[in-house]
């Protein structure tokens, strides 16, 4: 009987531990190589097999070998154990092995701590609202587990455990919120982390080689979100300027090194400015994007600072935290002129081409120049080349050989923005016009629920910029000439040849589309207020609370004070609940006196569950000389306590009897 109870208890404990371990590992399953979850499942299965089917568990030597092998496997997989992902992998493997050998309560303690750490590790690189929900669920379940594992006696039934967990979690929630809001956050990391560049990032890079790409994979990933203050500019003006590529080696366009001059004061503005706030998703690697042309900018956090290159490109002084979301505000003038004064040597740089490349294009440009050498019209006439012929916009162009512009213009005539921008830039450079390629994003989708624009990786774009002494740098977008709908509608919805991305496929299903928009809005608010909650928001919170010039120690005192206040409140509340219900019944009080008198004659107080009659019988047996008095008192008590006793006669009688008994048999002698 007892062994059976112990057995079922053991199985229940094991099931709890297994559930916790599996839940803790869940967030890592996608980011780790598949053998790791498989190993964890194997360990859990092995443990259950040992429990139920008496499979042998590994001995200490096999355990040591397993541990060494797993660490070696993690090392082989990642070449390091430094960093978030390899560290998590190691933790993951350790958790699996620990589960296999966890027997003593101490092991279970280590197991629960490992599980907490594993979940914690998955939250260090950000985490969206779903991860937040998962965290809450995990803490709730792990609290149940903690209660069960921490039990001295047998496991509790589910219902009381849940009730206790609720009693712990509900008061914990406001304390957690106060700590979250008020605990002082640091503006920078405590120690610098070695480079975490290994994590693959999508997005624009510092170079462009259109001839090499035969399939432009477009992802729906968000590049950044923009909130306009006031009326946003029309879609055709949404050119988000990114890396500017000036050097061409025949295949690749690359960014120049170094600063030529400060160009901030060369922008001549016209018309109304656009003011907006950009929230960059992590992984932008120091690139910032702004509408052409930005005239003023500021980063929200002190950790980030923005500057402008000599190509009118904004860069962020990168933070040490690659997973930060950078938020910055910009004022841009869609109507502008960027009149950078170029020296002769600079003009040479912007017209430089590798010798002997693209001979057929060179001949074409020469013939155009022969018709009319005017630089102002050469741009339009070059664009006409792409407009007039049967050029085709596609995201899956054929590969190009040595002379990319020749092959594109005269043979394949299939390509996407990079092909057109590159070919046009080559032509303009051949015509002697200083030209460069600008990459960035074009357009952006308005999320009507959140009231902001979402710019995705699939909105990536490249265009050309040509320089004339009068107008400075002017944008020339060949795509606007060839496929204008691409500019006004956005790429994925504007072109039939676009690959069917998820957003593309659900584009027509309005309900799904609405849901996707709503979800994006949820994510945005989450990023703004939860993930983005840092020193800046904390400072505004303190100012809102009435602190004039908030400091770190204000926060610390507020945190401590608020937490202590809540704990004291909880103490008072709990003390109330646990207060003994005093005997309100006078008969019960008199009977308790009688019990105290019997106690003096070494007769135990009523045992738990002993009725007054049984108690009296026991007392009579031990004190036969007082049998009549005891029986009378018990009967009297039952009358006074449980029968209608309006006159109080029974109570008076009880008092008299007890007093009498005390003087006769149990005088308080000591």
């Amino acid at each position: 009987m007892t062994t059976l109870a112990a057995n079922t208890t053991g199985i229940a404990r094991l099931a709890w531990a297994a559930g916790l371990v599996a839940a803790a590992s869940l967030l890592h399953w996608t980011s780790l190589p598949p053998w790791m979850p498989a190993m964890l499942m194997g360990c859990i299965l092995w443990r259950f097999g040992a429990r139920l089917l008496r499979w042998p568990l590994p001995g200490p030597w096999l355990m040591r070998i397993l541990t060494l092998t797993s660490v070696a496997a993690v090392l082989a997989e990642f070449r390091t154990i430094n960093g978030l992902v390899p560290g998590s992998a190691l933790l993951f493997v350790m958790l699996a092995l620990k589960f296999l050998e966890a027997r003593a309560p101490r092991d279970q303690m280590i197991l629960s701590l490992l599980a907490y750490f594993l979940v914690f590790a998955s939250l260090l690189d950000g985490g969206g609202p779903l991860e937040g929900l998962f965290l809450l669920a995990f803490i709730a379940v792990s609290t149940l587990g903690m209660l069960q594992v921490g039990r001295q006696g047998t496991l509790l039934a589910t219902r009381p455990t849940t009730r206790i967990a609720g009693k712990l979690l509900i008061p914990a929630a406001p304390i957690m919120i106060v700590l979250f809001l008020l605990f002082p956050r640091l503006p920078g990391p405590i120690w610098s982390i070695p480079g975490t560049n290994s994590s693959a990032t999508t997005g624009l890079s510092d170079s462009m080689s259109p001839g090499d790409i035969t399939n432009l994979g477009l992802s729906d990933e968000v590049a950044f979100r923009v909130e306009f203050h006031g009326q946003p500019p029309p879609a055709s003006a949404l050119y988000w300027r990114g890396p500017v590529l000036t050097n061409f080696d025949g295949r690749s366009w690359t960014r120049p090194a170094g600063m030529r001059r400060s160009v901030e004061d060369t922008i001549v503005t016209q018309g109304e400015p656009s003011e907006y706030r950009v929230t960059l998703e992590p992984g932008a690697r120091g690139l910032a994007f702004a509408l052409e042309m930005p005239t003023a900018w500021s980063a929200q956090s002190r950790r980030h600072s923005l500057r402008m290159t000599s190509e009118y490109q904004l860069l962020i002084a990168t933070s040490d935290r690659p997973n930060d979301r950078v938020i910055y505000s910009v004022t841009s003038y869609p109507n502008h002129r960027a009149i950078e004064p170029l020296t002769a040597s600079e003009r040479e740089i912007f017209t430089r081409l590798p010798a002997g490349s693209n001979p057929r294009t060179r001949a074409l440009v020469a013939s155009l120049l022969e018709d009319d050498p005017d630089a102002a019209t050469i741009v339009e006439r070059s664009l006409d080349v792409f407009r007039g012929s049967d050029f085709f916009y596609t995201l899956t162009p054929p590969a190009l050989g040595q002379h990319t512009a020749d092959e594109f213009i005269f043979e394949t005539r299939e390509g996407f923005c990079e092909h057109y921008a590159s070919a046009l830039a080559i032509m303009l450079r051949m015509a002697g016009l200083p030209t460069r390629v600008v990459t960035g994003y074009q357009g952006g989708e308005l999320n009507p629920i959140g009231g902001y624009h979402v710019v995705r990786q699939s909105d990536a774009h490249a265009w050309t910029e040509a320089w004339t002494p009068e107008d400075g740098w002017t944008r020339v977008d060949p795509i606007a000439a060839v496929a204008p709908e691409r500019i006004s509608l956005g790429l994925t919805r504007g072109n039939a040849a676009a690959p069917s991305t998820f957003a593309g496929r659900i584009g027509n299903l309005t309900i799904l589309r609405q849901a996707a928009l709503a979800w994006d809005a949820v994510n945005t608010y989450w990023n703004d207020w939860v993930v983005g909650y840092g020193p800046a928001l904390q400072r505004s919170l303190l100012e809102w609370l009435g602190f004039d010039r908030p400091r770190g120690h204000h926060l610390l005192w507020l945190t401590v004070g608020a937490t202590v206040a809540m704990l004291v409140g909880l103490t008072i509340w709990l003390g109330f609940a646990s207060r003994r219900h005093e005997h309100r019944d006078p008969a019960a009080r008199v009977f308790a006196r009688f019990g105290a008198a019997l106690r003096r004659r070494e007769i135990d107080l009523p045992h738990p569950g002993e009725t007054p009659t049984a108690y009296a019988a026991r007392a009579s047996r031990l004190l036969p000389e007082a049998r009549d008095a005891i029986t009378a008192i018990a009967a009297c008590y039952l009358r006074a306590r449980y029968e209608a006793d309006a006159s109080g006669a029974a109570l008076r009688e009880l008092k008299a009897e007890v007093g009498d008994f005390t003087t006769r048999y149990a005088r308080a002698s000591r």
Partner: protein
Amino acid sequence: MFAAATQRLEALAATWARRRQGDDAHAVTLQRRRIYILPTRHGLVFSAMLFAMLLASLQYAASLAFAMTFLLAALGLVAMQHCHNNLLHMIVRLGGADPVFAGEEAVFRLTLDNGAGLPRLDIVAENADSKAGPVDLDAGASATLQLHRPTAKRGYVELSRFSVATTHPGNLFRAWTWVHMDARCLVYPAPAARGRPPPAGASLPGERAMQRREDDDFAGLRTATPSDPPRRLAWKVYARSGQLLVKDFAGGVEQPQLFEFQALRDLDVEEKLSQLTRWCLDAAEAGTAFGLVLPGENIPLATGERHLHRCLRALALFAERP
């Protein structure tokens, strides 16, 4: 070494608590000022983990990591309150202890009363020699725990200090209280080995003629009185009818015996007491009337359980006057 230091520290704390709390009555309501609380080893490791998490959260400035750290910290703080509250206002009552013979374990009964409308879980009572529990108390329920003390010699054995403790919920904290009740258990002398018959001269002279008649003729049943020896009770009849009857024997009572302390000249005091204890037990078992003659105390002839305990009590507390 660490364990020794902990023990010394605990002893110091206990002495301090004793001084500030004073003696307790036989029923104690656990008030706030006498409930102490410290983290368990698990709790210490848990807080170390929280500290590491806090550092990592600051390092990565990860909001959800902060949230998890703070939620666990808040959970720990609330658990501390609940652990303390698990004992607060509980009533610890001494239920008494039945006399034992020297060498046996004295058993002290403690009754825990949960007068509150909340359950109390995982309550443990512990003294230097034993540990009782864990026990769960439902709202308004009571439970009895037994603490043991070894006994070596007759007289009284004190319960001395014991603790009532809990690590619920989650084994993060241990809340406890020290109780110092003036509780003692009577210890009878250990009975000597069987074998030495009571001296014949101990019998009363007038009743010598009644010796050895046909004792065992069953005469019938009569209603039991509290003074009847248990072995004469008609248990089978009781089981059938529920009526407590006594077997009457035509042979009448066996010869009454008077045991004298002074008659055992060859034994020392404790051996004498042990021998007298043995004889009292044997006589009570046989249903014979017996009496005890001690220096300074005479217990007249009688039968019955109360009489036996009276004799044993006298033997247990016997002190030779100078």
